């Protein structure tokens, strides 16, 4: 069972309270009308699918209900950090994984 730190509740809670919500930092393109089919493909369907530290979204569904971001190593499933949705993406080199 994963233990996940919700940055809004500031508590570390069992996986069952959370839902995974896919890759993080994928911004919806602004000029919809001018987008090519390949741009739509990249936005809607192409995923980085990292083997290693991955930026991803989670939702504290059975708690505060809010979306937040996380960096998790997809090989070990260990969380390196979690952060609020409007905070900038942390540099991987700054992450030690020693989060509580």
């Amino acid at each position: 069972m994963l233990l996940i730190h919700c940055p809004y509740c500031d508590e570390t809670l069992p996986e069952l309270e959370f839902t995974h919500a896919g890759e993080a930092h994928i911004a919806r393109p602004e000029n919809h009308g001018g987008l090519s089919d390949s741009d739509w493909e990249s936005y809607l369907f192409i995923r980085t699918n990292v083997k290693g530290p991955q930026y991803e979204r989670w939702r504290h569904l059975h708690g505060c209900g809010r979306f937040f971001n996380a960096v998790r190593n997809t090989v070990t499933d260990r969380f390196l950090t979690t952060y609020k949705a409007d905070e900038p993406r942390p540099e991987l080199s700054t992450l030690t994984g020693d989060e509580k």
Partner: protein
Amino acid sequence: MSRFNALNLLKNALSGNKNWTEQWPDSQPKSEYDVIIVGAGGHGLGAAYYLATQHGITNIAVIDKGWLGGGNTGRNTTIIRSNYLYDESARLFDHALDLWQDLSQELNYNVMYSNRGVLMLAHTVHDVQSFKRHVHSNRLNGVDNQWLTKEECKEYCPPLSIDPNARYPVVGGALQKRAGTARHDAVAWGYARGAAARGVDIIQNCSVNAIRRNADGSVAGVETDKGYIRAKKVAVSAAGHTSVVMETAGVRMPLESYPLQALVSEPIKPIFPCVVMSNAVHAYISQSDKGELVIGSGTDQYTSYSQRGGLPLIEHTVAAITEIFPMFNRMRMLRKWGGIVDVTPDRSAIISKTPVEGLYVNCGWGTGGFKATPGAAHTFAHTIAKNEPHPINAPFTLDRFRTGRLIDEAAAAAVAH
């Protein structure tokens, strides 16, 4: 390689089974091949087998980072069926089902294909409506599928509880009689043996670390643990690791990799005659020829390469199974494991050419590609040999995510496996 027949079995039995020769050699790489297949699962080995037997191409290496069949091929719960909703899928999976019928004879290797039937349970009025629609649509496509009342379900599968007060009451079911199971390892071994006998090199414990391209963009070869190997064509069939391998050729994939788990009980006497699955509770069960109950469900919720998965899902699965089959509630489970499955946005596979000349990909089988093994391998071999798809896999392109011609089995919501 000696052929298996009654005489041979008897001869070897009399000499204590000590004189069997090896079924395929442990090959070392040559410096160049016509075709390199990345991934020695059933799909990759099968593609090599059909390239050799149907297209006369034998200068092939199948390379795996582990042992052959050690990926999802050796980890799956072996359900074989073809009652998918869309025309494209029905054709592809029914093609595979046709090939399963005499695969043991074709390979001279017993893959233990058993058409014991797959029964999908309906628990609600909505299930009944969508299953009946599904049955009709399958029949229009010439795919075997039939509706059973709950009493008929009970008759087909006596251990089933049809108690109306159950947590998930059974109100009927859809039965594909032609569906069933097979021995997963034997499928990999049979194709490996057949391919090796025709000159294919099977190279194990050798990771492909990068795909190299020529100045004109076309495929040049692969970097591996055992050095650089040139190739005219490279065909990737690496299941959960497809994104990682394709990235090295500069191709980004519409895939996400999830752990999918399964578990088996201690072996017991034959009690369970068929395969039963339930979309609503997300669990399925059958009994292996060794006597273990084989139990599985959906993927874990988060992407991962950990090949392990979490316990909450196992708890959910076992809870669901014991609701539908209360008689199993004191069975002891022997072991559980996970595999990494590559999932596409529309939950349909990709068997396709790629933007890179000479590079081909077969992936996106997600939670349900074992059943497709012969069909996928056969059409993938055709695509590689002819540099164009077989009519059956033609809709399963990589570029459908750009053109929008999705094959939306996700929305059709037949549960996976």
